[in-house]
């Protein structure tokens, strides 16, 4: 059984259209021009336990709205949601006990107080026994190194430390599913590395399911076994990153540096994109010919000094999805 089951999910918002000018403001007061907007428009997907799923899409695609419905914060307009077999709306308390949720742009830590105070509060909220609490905290400390700043007031933490604190706070009650809404936003390379390491460890050692929304494609590349791409509230791609990128941008580039001037020969299964002095760019489809085949074909015909194969840019591929479905 899938740990998250979403079927025909719809969320509508009522938006009042505002126009400029006082006259229009008064008119809209008397007769507001209401419009129903679908933030989420018929989503269906299942997520299996132990998966790390990237949930991506452009701003306003309905990512946060979906996460909020999955975690019981918002009521869907229509459709059904099952998380751990239960409805997050009807059985909110039972469901949220199984969930850890981190919003990258907001914190659940007490701003004025030392980090440890929030953990102590959560210990009482989730009714965690002393022994278990200590063991979890030790485990979290091994991965996140929170011991160094557990006695520092949260307002004095760096963004990276705060995010590690927030991750730890969301894990205190040992959830089975972790929702991360842009967990690496605004972080430096080091902090990003630490957080990705943490997600991988929790997934591997505890078979924790992770649903991750992000705009950072490095997160996706390094963590996610599967991608759900949404745009305008609809699912537009679903599958492993490789296959999505392969489908959208099947072309690779072979860049050859020549040792002396030569006319680059045509090749039946590769196209010369351009030649510029001693450099030649061949574009080829990796399903039609492998890089090594192409290189061995060309090496007989060209004086090659150096060469490199360029993978398609994920960023470009994803931008392409957003554009074509936009």
């Amino acid at each position, binding site marked *: 059984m899938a740990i998250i089951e979403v079927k025909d999910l719809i969320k509508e*918002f009522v938006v009042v259209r505002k126009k400029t000018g006082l006259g229009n403001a008064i008119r809209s007061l008397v007769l507001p021009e209401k419009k129903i907007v679908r933030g989420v428009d018929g989503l269906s997907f299942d997520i299996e336990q132990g998966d790390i799923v990237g949930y991506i899409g452009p*701003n306003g695609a309905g*990512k*946060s709205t979906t996460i*909020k419905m999955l*975690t*019981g*914060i*918002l*009521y869907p307009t229509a459709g059904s949601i099952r998380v751990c077999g239960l409805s997050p709306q009807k059985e*909110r*308390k*039972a469901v*949220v*006990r199984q*969930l850890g*949720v981190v*919003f990258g*742009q*907001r914190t*659940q830590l*007490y701003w*004025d*107080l030392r980090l440890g*105070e929030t953990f*102590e*509060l959560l210990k*009482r*909220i*989730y*009714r965690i026994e002393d022994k278990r609490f200590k063991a979890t905290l030790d485990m979290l400390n091994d991965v996140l190194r929170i011991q160094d700043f557990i006695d520092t007031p949260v307002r004095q933490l760096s963004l990276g430390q705060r995010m590690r604190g927030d991750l730890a706070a969301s894990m205190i009650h040992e959830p089975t599913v972790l929702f991360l*809404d*842009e967990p690496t936003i605004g972080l430096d390379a080091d902090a990003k590395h630490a957080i990705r390491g943490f997600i991988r460890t929790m997934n591997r050692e505890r078979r924790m399911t992770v649903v991750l929304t992000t705009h950072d494609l490095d997160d996706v590349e390094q963590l996610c076994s599967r991608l759900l791409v949404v745009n305008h509230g609809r699912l537009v791609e679903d599958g492993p990153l490789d296959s999505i990128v392969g489908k959208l941008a099947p072309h690779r580039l072979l860049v050859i540096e020549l040792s002396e001037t030569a006319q680059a020969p045509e090749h039946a299964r590769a196209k010369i994109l351009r030649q510029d002095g001693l450099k030649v760019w061949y574009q080829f489809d990796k399903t039609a010919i492998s890089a090594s085949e192409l290189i061995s074909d060309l090496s007989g015909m060209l004086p090659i000094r150096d060469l490199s194969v360029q993978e398609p840019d994920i960023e470009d591929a994803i931008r392409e999805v957003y554009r074509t479905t936009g």
Partner: protein
Amino acid sequence: MSEIRHYLSVFGYYAKLAIQRQLEYPLFLVSWLIMIPTQYFAGIWMLRIIVDRFQPLEGWAFDDLAFLYGLGLLSHGLVVVFFIPTWGTETAVIRGEFDRLLLRPLNVFFQFVTGYFNFIGLIDLIPGVVIFLYAAHAVDFSWEAGNIAKLILVVIGGLFIRGSLYTIVGAVAFWTKRSRNLIGMSVATLERTTMYPLTLYPHVVQAVLTFLFPIGFISFYPAESFLGKPASLELPLDMAIWTLVAGIICMVVAYSIFRLGLRRYESAGS
């Protein structure tokens, strides 16, 4: 039973955290310590002037009025300690602060209200206690067990009536995204309607303040009863019991409205 213990232990820790947070800003505390008592002593001073210049209001002499005012201030002080988050419902709705409460396996209304134990609000109790003690002495209030028990019921009932009024008015923000101004109005209305004898107002207003928003039960009806004045509202049993009953009914209604509002909660941006 273990459920109640659980909620109590969370409440205890919330209170501890709130006190610690407030102690982080001592100057703020001092400014309240000066401001609040000044405000209420000015209020009682106004009463004195009114009664001195004119005649006793509807047969209520200054000492009686002080008793009424002081009794009302007791539950006011407690509402400021226990229900202050309801005043900020608007902000909480706009900033999406209910998100986090909804993510925790506890009752949301409980978390919202007890999440900030406003111990600075105890300062609000100072003028109430001083004025009430003075007036109790002046009107020869007898401090016997029965009266003390009634007094406790009245203060708790008054706390519930006030708290539920603020809960309802605050919850308007779930529908309109705005309720702070309404809260301001309610605070002012509550102060005025609990400070003077209800019989001063037209009958329609009296009816509204008795049956629709039972503000009359906070201080006026119990004060009449304590002071041995002819009862404006004839009811079996003691008025203190009715104050508590009114408080509990109000709280149930307020909680239902809050829950209805929470279903309409739309969270915020991202």
